């Protein structure tokens, strides 16, 4: 366990840990127990949120939702470590599918931790036509206190609080106890069980050989869970509710895709338009008009306005100006909007259905269906979308998704400039642009999917029932996540701003502009002033926009600028987030590969379009044809290569 939690527990305080499957309402119970005093931080060495709150003189700790503790993922390892350190475990289970959830409950009981079972969503169970046969029978069978709750409606919370301290160890089969007792004693009872079940990390820590009986222990536990569930739950009627029918419509392509597009449109309107444009305009305007001038006046009392200190602290890229304006004026509304949408999608149960619907489509890109979420959000804001890649199951998928996002997905700010430019160029160029970007995305995704070691992690997800989420819960969740994001991003942004102001103070920024001239003029065949667009556009995306329209450029040149700009990493914020999510080494590699490719493709396109100007009016159609042929050629080549490589394996 990390010192962070230990430090926050008052003397004599107990650690109350919430544990349960995903989507059982753990966070609602957490909020009900802790109220407002919640602290969210990172699990050490990970990007996962950890929520900590006070309950009386004790501490309540939330764990990631897991189906059991088998060291299958980062989440499970974290849940394991927190549970091993717990004084009391509150196991939250979903009454609607008790049979599934009891597996984890029985594992916790076998671990011998003092616990209490909160059977949540009891109201939903009744609606689904299930009758839970009183908690008494379940208490008898499990040997731990059981409380029926419907946390969203605050039902049963008082009873849970009253019974909290009567948590006790549950009933364990004698045969299981015998097995556990054979594990040498330095490991506690709980750790002994996990070692018996083959937990590699714990076995190494205690120098004990991991057990090999996981399969048989799990089978026995599964059978017991199913038996208890069948004893306790009676199905009174079978009903197909509207929500379950809607759930099916979301899965079938013929109805699912229209529903998905409708949802995406709504998401785009909310995040891409309402938050990214309307709210940001207000918050950023406030920062520019009130916060920054006020700060400069205040600093002006101590330092002359043109001094080095003033420039570094409150200049154009000042640590106190750029950092705060960016974080509060720009990022906070965006983050809040996106986390609101994400929380809604999560809590309604729509997310796993979208993933199921598009699983097939995305498997070609080496991703599984869950990657659709960040890719969609990228069109709103690439920065935020990179953060949501945390949803993805494997590191490999996170890597592919972030690369695609940074490379080929234009964010809402870029989209706005693109629209403005292409309005003057005509539909043919717009089509060429769309085909270019799509084929680049497809080719890059396919190549990454084929050549990065490993494969798309197989999709196996639970489809929770569709439900209307609780408003308060959504807002709390979104706020806590946004707060944590800003807290983490602050040092990064301050560092970036410091770096930029250093460049400005030392005059290196102007030098950089000159350095870029050979690249822009000789390679991309563009006017020299365009260097500003690339540099300034990187620092602040909207800076570049006006100057593009003011420069007198040929249609081909405009097209090359737009294509190259789209392919580069959208802005400094996105760059910083990529570094934060992927680490310095991989971040730098991703960033430089993307910039190299962007300028390479931009230059090639410029040359090809110039060559095709021979065909006069057929210039753009010829280019279109060439792009599509190239894409088909690369895809066929990569398929041939991998199938030849795969053959010996199959023999």
């Amino acid at each position, binding site marked *: 366990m990390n010192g962070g939690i230990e430090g926050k527990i008052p003397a004599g305080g107990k650690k109350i840990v919430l544990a349960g499957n995903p989507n059982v309402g753990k966070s609602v119970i957490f909020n009900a127990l802790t109220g407002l005093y919640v602290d969210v931080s990172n699990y050490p060495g990970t990007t996962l949120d950890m929520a900590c709150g006070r309950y009386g003189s004790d501490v309540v700790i939330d764990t990631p939702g897991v*189906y*059991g503790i*088998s060291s*299958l993922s980062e989440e499970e390892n974290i849940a394991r470590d927190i549970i091993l350190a717990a004084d009391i475990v509150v196991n939250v289970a979903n009454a*609607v*599918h008790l*049979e*599934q959830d009891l*597996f*984890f409950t029985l594992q916790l009981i076998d671990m011998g931790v003092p616990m209490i079972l909160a059977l949540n969503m009891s109201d939903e169970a009744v609606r*689904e036509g*299930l009758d839970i046969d009183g908690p008494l029978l379940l208490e008898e069978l499990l040997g731990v206190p059981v409380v029926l709750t419907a946390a969203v409606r605050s039902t049963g919370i008082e009873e849970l609080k009253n019974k909290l301290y009567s948590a006790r160890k549950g009933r364990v089969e004698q045969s299981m106890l015998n097995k556990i007792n054979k594990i040498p004693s330095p490991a506690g009872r709980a750790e002994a069980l996990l070692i018996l079940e083959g937990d590699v990390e714990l076995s190494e820590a205690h120098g004990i050989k991991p057990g090999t009986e*996981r*399969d048989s222990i*799990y*089978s026995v536990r*599964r059978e017991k*869970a*199913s038996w208890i*569930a069948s004893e306790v739950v009676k199905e009174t009627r*079978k009903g*197909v509710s509207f929500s379950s*029918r809607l759930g*099916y*419509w979301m*899965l*079938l*392509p013929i109805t*699912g895709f229209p529903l998905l597009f409708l949802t995406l449109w709504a998401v785009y309107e909310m995040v891409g338009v309402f938050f990214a444009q309307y709210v940001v305009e207000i918050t950023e305007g406030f920062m520019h008009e009130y916060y920054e001038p006020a700060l400069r006046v205040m600093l002006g009392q101590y330092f002359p306005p043109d001094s080095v200190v003033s420039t570094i602290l409150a200049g154009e890229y000042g640590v106190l100006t750029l950092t705060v304006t960016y974080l509060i004026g720009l990022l906070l509304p965006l983050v809040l909007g996106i986390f609101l949408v994400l929380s809604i999608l999560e809590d309604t149960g729509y997310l*796993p259905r979208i*993933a*199921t*619907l598009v*699983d*097939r489509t995305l*498997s070609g890109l080496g991703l*599984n*269906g869950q990657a659709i979420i960040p890719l969609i959000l990228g069109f709103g804001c690439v920065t935020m979308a990179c953060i949501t890649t945390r949803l993805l199951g494997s590191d490999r998928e996170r890597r592919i998704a972030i690369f695609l996002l940074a490379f080929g997905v234009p964010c809402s700010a870029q989209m706005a400039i693109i629209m403005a430019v292409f309005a003057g160029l005509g539909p043919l160029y717009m089509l060429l642009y769309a085909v270019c970007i799509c084929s680049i995305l497809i080719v890059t995704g396919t190549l990454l999917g084929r050549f990065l070691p490993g494969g*798309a992690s*197989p*999709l*196996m*997800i*639970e*489809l929770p*029932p569709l439900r209307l989420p609780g408003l308060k819960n959504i807002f709390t969740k979104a706020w806590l996540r946004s707060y944590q994001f800003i807290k983490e991003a602050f040092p990064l942004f301050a560092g970036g701003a410091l770096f930029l102001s250093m460049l400005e103070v030392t005059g290196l920024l102007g030098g950089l502009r000159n350095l870029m001239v050979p690249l822009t003029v000789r390679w991309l065949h563009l006017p020299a002033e365009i260097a500003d667009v690339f540099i300034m556009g990187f620092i602040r995306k909207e800076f570049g926009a006006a100057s593009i329209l003011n420069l007198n450029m040929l249609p081909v040149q405009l097209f090359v600028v737009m294509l190259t700009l789209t392919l580069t990493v959208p802005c400094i914020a996105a760059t910083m987030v990529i570094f934060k999510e992927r680490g310095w080494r991989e971040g730098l590699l991703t960033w430089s590969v993307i910039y190299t490719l962007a300028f390479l493709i931009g230059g090639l396109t410029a040359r090809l379009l110039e060559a095709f100007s021979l065909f006069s009016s057929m210039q753009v159609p010829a280019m279109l044809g060439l792009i599509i042929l190239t894409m088909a050629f690369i895809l066929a080549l990569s398929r041939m290569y991998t199938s030849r490589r795969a053959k010996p394996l199959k023999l």
Partner: protein
Amino acid sequence: MNLDQAKKGQVIRITGIPSELIRVQAIRFGISEGAVVTCREIVPAGPVIVAKNKQEIAIGRSLAKTITVEPVVPKLNRKEPVRSL
């Protein structure tokens, strides 16, 4: 027979899950070797959705191809309503 060949509405018994990792995950979902499940829905060329009691699991097509199943003759006293969309 493999899971991807199951038909919508068919009741099947899972007979084999070759990957140990998937087996461990599946057993916690309530789907162990020997479990009887209903094939609830098949997304064309996409995942297969199996149901056990009130709970539904989507299984990607490539994974479904590796899972072996056998059809179960439905018992007469168990009325599983045929879902029509």
